[in-house]
């Protein structure tokens, strides 16, 4: 057997190359003295370029490097959303003391490294690239969580995330070994072929493998009962990082979750759908119950994120194109609703020096409409009320579930949404009630930057309503992801 070098499609790889280049540039800028000031611009530019290249590849579907990476609707859609989250996170971090503390270019280099890993993960089509990309996005995030060096809970958060994340990675790797052992392949399609041709389908070895991979991925996207790190890390990490984690890790995690389970493990769909449905159900219960008693907005969002992840798993459980479309639409909606909310948090923190307690939002409905509305719309959307995009996201998920014969999970999703009223509405109620008290002004960054972040919040709020009324553009965008996985029933 002669060695054949894999074919590399450089055009398909170009978004990744753009990100690598941007990463290298920010690292160099870190030691470039006064030029360090342009690091944020360089980071944003590289993500914009990568996004532009991805848009240029819209509708394409091909192998990137000998079948280990796959450029298709799923990876393009999810990567674009991740890049959007990355750009917003850079904006959020500009005035963040944590970023200054860590050295701004260093902070940005870590962020870009994580974005790079996530983009690769959406394309991963092989156990090896899967694991490498996962680690590439995780390791910088561990460091990012701990960048607020003066705060003990930031360090605690970083360390906790590192330890539990590594445990998740190890479990995942262990599971991969079983899957490889059972199928004799690392490529996703080859695993599917190997599994369906062998007589191992119901064998404990392969089921152990699937179980361990599920657990590993559940750690990453914070599904219960593997979620314990989430609230602590959300609360401890600098807010810009929390915002990024809240949306981007879910996007990247669910991209590979969908691709791995729906291509490589597709022959076993009848085995794992029940496991995933059970995990979804547990997450919905645990997340919603946990969120109710939280006083910190970030912790509350952490717990509610667990419940939201539970809803999202529904899109995978049904193992249909409809399901993946619903998942991807829901994630896009989730991104808009969350980033709108986090924009408000960032401004409150950087301008008014307030902490992240829900109580600190009291009365902003009276004195600061530009902040009150985005967070109100974000909360109503996360509940799933019309006319926000959150309502349609739930509608798509429920339709897919009912169509696939998982009506009980659909009912559980709406029961979860009801429980979520208790804590999301508490935020809305606090925002709009109470009398004005003069906000304390912390010495902060220029007001032009804060104006920009307020603008970001308003833009996401407007989008949340706009797509709630006219969902077609967003749906067409999300549907790309569903079409990518061709082996599924309509």
């Amino acid at each position, binding site marked *: 057997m002669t060695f054949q070098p894999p074919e590399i499609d450089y055009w398909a790889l170009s978004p990744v190359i753009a990100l690598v280049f941007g990463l290298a540039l920010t690292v160099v800028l870190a030691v470039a003295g006064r030029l360090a000031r342009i690091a944020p611009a360089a980071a944003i530019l590289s993500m914009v370029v990568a996004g532009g290249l991805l848009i240029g590849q819209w509708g394409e579907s091909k192998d990137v490097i000998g079948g280990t990476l796959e450029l298709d609707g799923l990876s393009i859609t999810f990567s674009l959303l991740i890049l959007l989250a990355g750009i917003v996170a850079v904006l959020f971090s500009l005035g963040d003391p944590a970023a200054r503390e860590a050295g701004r270019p260093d902070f940005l280099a870590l962020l870009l490294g994580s974005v790079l890993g996530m983009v690769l993960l959406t394309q991963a089509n092989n156990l090896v690239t899967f694991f490498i990309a996962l680690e590439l996005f995780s390791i910088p995030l561990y460091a990012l969580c701990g960048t607020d060096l003066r705060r003990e809970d930031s360090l605690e958060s970083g360390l906790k995330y590192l330890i539990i994340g590594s445990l998740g990675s190890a479990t995942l790797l262990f599971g991969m070994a079983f899957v490889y052992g059972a199928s004799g392949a690392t490529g996703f399609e080859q695993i599917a072929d190997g599994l369906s041709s062998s007589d191992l389908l119901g064998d404990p070895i392969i089921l152990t493998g699937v179980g361990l991979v599920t657990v590993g991925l559940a750690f990453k996207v914070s599904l219960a009962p593997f979620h314990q790190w989430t609230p602590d890390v959300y609360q401890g990490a600098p807010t810009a990082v929390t915002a990024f984690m809240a949306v981007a890790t879910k996007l990247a995690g669910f991209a590979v979750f969908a691709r791995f389970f729906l291509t490589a493990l597709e022959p076993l769909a009848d085995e794992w759908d029940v496991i995933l449905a059970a995990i979804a159900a547990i997450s919905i219960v645990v997340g919603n119950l946990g969120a109710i008693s939280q006083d910190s907005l970030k912790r509350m969002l952490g717990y509610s994120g667990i419940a939201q992840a539970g809803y999202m798993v529904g899109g995978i459980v049904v193992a249909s194109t409809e399901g993946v479309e619903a998942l991807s639409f829901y994630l896009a909606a989730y991104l808009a609703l969350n980033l709108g909310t986090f924009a408000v948090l960032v401004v409150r923190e950087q301008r008014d020096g307030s902490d992240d307690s829900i109580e600190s939002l009291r009365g902003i409905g*009276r004195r600061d409409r530009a902040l009150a509305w985005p967070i109100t719309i974000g909360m*109503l959307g996360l509940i*799933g*009320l*019309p*006319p926000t995009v959150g*309502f*349609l996201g*739930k*509608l*798509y998920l*429920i*339709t897919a579930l*009912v*169509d696939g014969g998982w*009506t009980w999970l*659909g*009912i559980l999703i*709406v*029961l979860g*949404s*009801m429980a979520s*009223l*208790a804590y999301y*509405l*508490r935020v809305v*109620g606090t925002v*709009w*009630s*109470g009398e004005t008290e003069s906000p304390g002004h912390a010495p902060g960054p220029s007001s032009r930057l804060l104006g920009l972040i307020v603008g970001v919040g308003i833009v996401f709020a407007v989008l949340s309503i706009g797509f709630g009324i006219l*969902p*077609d553009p967003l*749906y067409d965008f999300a*549907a790309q992801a569903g079409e990518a996985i061709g082996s599924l029933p309509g």
Partner: protein
Amino acid sequence: MLSILLWLPLVFGIVALLVPAARAWVPALAGTALTLVLAAVVAVGFDPGDPGRYAESVSWIPELGISYSLAIDGLSVFLVLLTALAWVPAVAFAASRNAGDGRERLFYFMLLLGETATLGAFLASDLILFVLFFDLMIVPFYFLFGLWGRTRDGATAGGATTKMIIYTLVGSLLMLVAAVAVGFSAEEVSGKPISYSIPELIARGIGESDQYWLFWLFALAFFIKMPLFPFNGWMPDAYRVAPLPALAVFSAVLSKVGAYGFLRVVLPVMPDAAELFQTAILIFAVVSIIYGSAIAFTKIDLRMIIGFSSVAQLGFITLGIFALDETGANGALFQMINHGLVVVPAILIVGLIAERTGSEDLGPMGGLAKNAPIFAVIFLIVTMATLAIPGSPNFIGEFLILNGTFQVSVAIAIVASVGVALAAYYALRMYQRTMQNPLPPGSDSREISLRDALIIVPMVLVLVILAFAPQIVLGETGDAVSAVVEKVGQLG
């Protein structure tokens, strides 16, 4: 045409956000008035023989089979008119008592958003669109009750409002799943691509076994919204805190959306289940009648009396619908209109009484009629209509309902009749304790002002007209209601 009618209030609501706070009521009032004119034009042009006249339909989310389709028929035409009519005095009353808290813009925006959402629920002829508007209704009222509602000691009304929204959303979110399941069940039965168009769903029908559980999900949503006992846990708290103009439309119109849902969706789409569970629902209804009436006469808080009498009235309406009989169902629809027409003036009068006595409790009141004969007459008419005295349209409604019920079950009809007697007691007590007896110190028997008379009298006039000419309503609705009931009747 229907789209313009539907969105007109919201457009004016947005305008109200843009003008100075002190002038926000101008576009709001103009918007509701224009909506009323438009609704009247639609109602006049409505022809029961040609229900498709104003229908419009645009594909909205094609991949899920959801369309933006609106239609008006005998079931909805007067409810739309009632909605448009009820909002005008509510806005006018709010405008005449400008709170001056600087947030009027938001108040009127929310109030008009509520009108659009309610009209949407009545006009939608796509099931998902109906659910969407049903859910949307609750959002503006959450803000209206939460931000402007005050408890007796002046605190804001967060807890009561949260309770209300949790209760009502429990129902409406479950209904969302049920609606999707109805669509798929009908798809399976017919073998045609999925559609949520309500006429299409009725034509296709859904599997009998699916009907049995879907029925209860819809019924739960509607019962909570109305509310019927024992789903009325949110009602006392919400009524106690709500700002009066918002409460007037909430009580008059939103509660009817639940009853309307039975006629629009449940009976025609799930006829087997409706027939099977008929007795169970009739018992629910009759329990609500007795419970609501009994609690109403133990209360001294005027808002509570009106609230619990509404529970009883909605019980009557449900009774009429589930008599599954032409007479009863026609009576129920007629009674929905009547109750809406009675409640708006009744609640606004509570506001006037409170201004004269400084209290909303019956205890320290009395004698308000002394120098205010016109005010007393207006209130007397409203009271008489509440207790459904012969000669009032409410009497005709209750008579038709009981007439229909007698044909199903004599026992239930007799028990329900007790509710009529109780109503006479609590309604008369309400009138006596406020208007008659000596005037206690601190109270002021002032004649109703011209402005307030202009706000309240028109609805009372409509009530009087309907007493003499119920055919205006019954003539137009008869065909549509009969069609719904016959759908169930065909099974037997």
